[in-house]
């Protein structure tokens, strides 16, 4: 067997409470450079909350998050960005009154986590935003706003990218295209966590999945194996999103 690849992100026993409710209840998992990890689970199982904790919106109430072997739980978001963590949002959150180019420029100027040069024009071109570069983000379609979220995250040259339902609302052609782009990014060494309800998409791009339910992981392994585990099947059939 090959040795375990180095772990980029290690989440262990993370608890996040809202009032008395445990949105995360001892969540543990890890991800390595170049890996695409699927994070799946029924609505309300805590996927977005996990991303929010990893990206610094919330500090964990218990447990630890470490990135590049240093503890980062509770660290301010902009510092995490400088270490190399970035994300997209389930509901895209561009800077609405700023142009597409300005949106990316802010991240490129303030968030760059790498010394490598990254031509912004190429990035906009690659994600089909060049033709709307000078339009305010509020003019964009929902799908364009999602790609803008992604481009803005990529403009910081992250080592870990958290994608919260990026594929929801995309048509089949766009899905194939974005799947290809995500794989290309992973091949360049980026670790990517993909939260998604579309199992076909998860199947197509992930190396490994974590199945979450009620704030903790109930399965870790490949999707093909996950669907044979009774507990996983039950969680999904019981929820709205039957696989």
């Amino acid at each position, binding site marked *: 067997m090959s040795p375990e690849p180095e772990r980029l992100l290690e989440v262990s026993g993370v608890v996040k409470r809202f009032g008395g409710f445990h949105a995360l209840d001892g969540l543990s998992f890890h991800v390595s450079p170049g890996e695409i990890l699927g994070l799946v689970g029924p609505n309300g199982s805590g996927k977005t909350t996990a991303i929010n904790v990893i*990206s*610094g*919106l919330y500090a964990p109430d218990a447990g630890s998050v470490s990135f590049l072997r240093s503890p980062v739980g509770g660290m*301010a*978001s*902009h510092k995490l*960005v*400088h270490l190399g963590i*970035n*994300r997209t*949002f389930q509901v895209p*959150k*561009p*800077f*609405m*009154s*700023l142009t597409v180019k*300005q*949106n990316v*420029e*802010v*991240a490129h*100027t*303030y*968030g*760059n*986590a790498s010394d490598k040069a990254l031509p912004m024009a190429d990035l906009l071109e690659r994600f089909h935003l060049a033709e709307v570069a000078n339009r305010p983000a509020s003019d964009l379609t929902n799908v364009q706003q999602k790609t803008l979220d992604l481009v*803005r*995250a990529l*403009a*910081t040259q992250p080592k870990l990218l958290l994608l919260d339902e990026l594929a929801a609302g995309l048509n089949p052609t766009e899905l194939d295209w974005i799947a290809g782009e995500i794989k290309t990014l992973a091949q360049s060494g980026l670790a990517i966590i993909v939260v998604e309800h579309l199992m076909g998409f998860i199947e197509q791009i992930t190396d490994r999945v974590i199945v979450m339910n009620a704030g903790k992981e109930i399965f870790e392994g490949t999707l093909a194996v996950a669907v044979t585990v009774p507990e996983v099947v039950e969680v999904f059939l019981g929820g709205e999103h039957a696989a």
Partner: protein
Amino acid sequence: MPDTLRHYLIIAVPLLIVMAVLPSVYSNHLLLFNFVIFFILAQGVNIIYGFTGYLPFGYVGFFGAGAYGFAIMVMHLNAPAPLAVLVGGAVAVVLGLILTPLLRLAGAYFSIANLAAALAVLHLVANPALEQITKGPYGVALNGTFNPTMAYAGGILILALTLGIVVYLKNSSFGLALQAVREDSFSASMSGVNVVKMRTVAWLASALVAGLAGGVFAWYVSVFYPDNVFSADFSIFAIVFALFGGVATISGPLIGVIILYGIYNLIGFTTPQYFQLIYGLLIMALVLFLPAGLVSLATRRGWYVP
């Protein structure tokens, strides 16, 4: 030509020259001075509201603090007027620092807390128990430094500084990041922007220009009461002027002052009853039809307004 330089040459420099020359051809110097003060205050509101989204209902607190900073330096330390103006600015910055926790509040909560803070400062200054220091409610008379010509020149310098700040914000990545914070503070953090630091810097810059304006105002009028320099009219006017012209631009707040303060002076004194009516209708029309200010007439068409 880089945009920054162009904005100085087409907006800031002409305005400063006009305001510097006008006193020699127009005799109502107090009116001209008030225009200078409102240019500064409307741009101060622009810095904090236009670029970061905080609407400061208590903005006059900084102005009044600056005026009293000036008065105390002159009364108790015999400070020369220019130094006292600078101290007025510093006092406002210190007040801004004390009030930074307000920036944790959002929307109307911030505005109301800021209003309350300005009232608290007014009542502190006007407190008879502090008569030894501030002259309390009885007001100050600073005859020793009375020099309207120099005070006017000081006002022009402060306007130049204020315009410099706004031109910088309009053209720098710092100003762009501030606008990003205004649009969505979490997205701004995820763009690597230190949201708390940026907001604080804008807040203090906005406090500084209002404090300097208050200092130079005290120098110019030399006799005033707490109610004069803490009058809510300053906050309301500065906000309305800035919004009317259009914030997050350099020209918008200036246009707002020229038009609205112009109208105010044309019809406000002679026929106040019409003035109130026209003013009220103008503001309602603005909020209903042009929420982004006059400049949005142009920006809607895709034209760039500096």
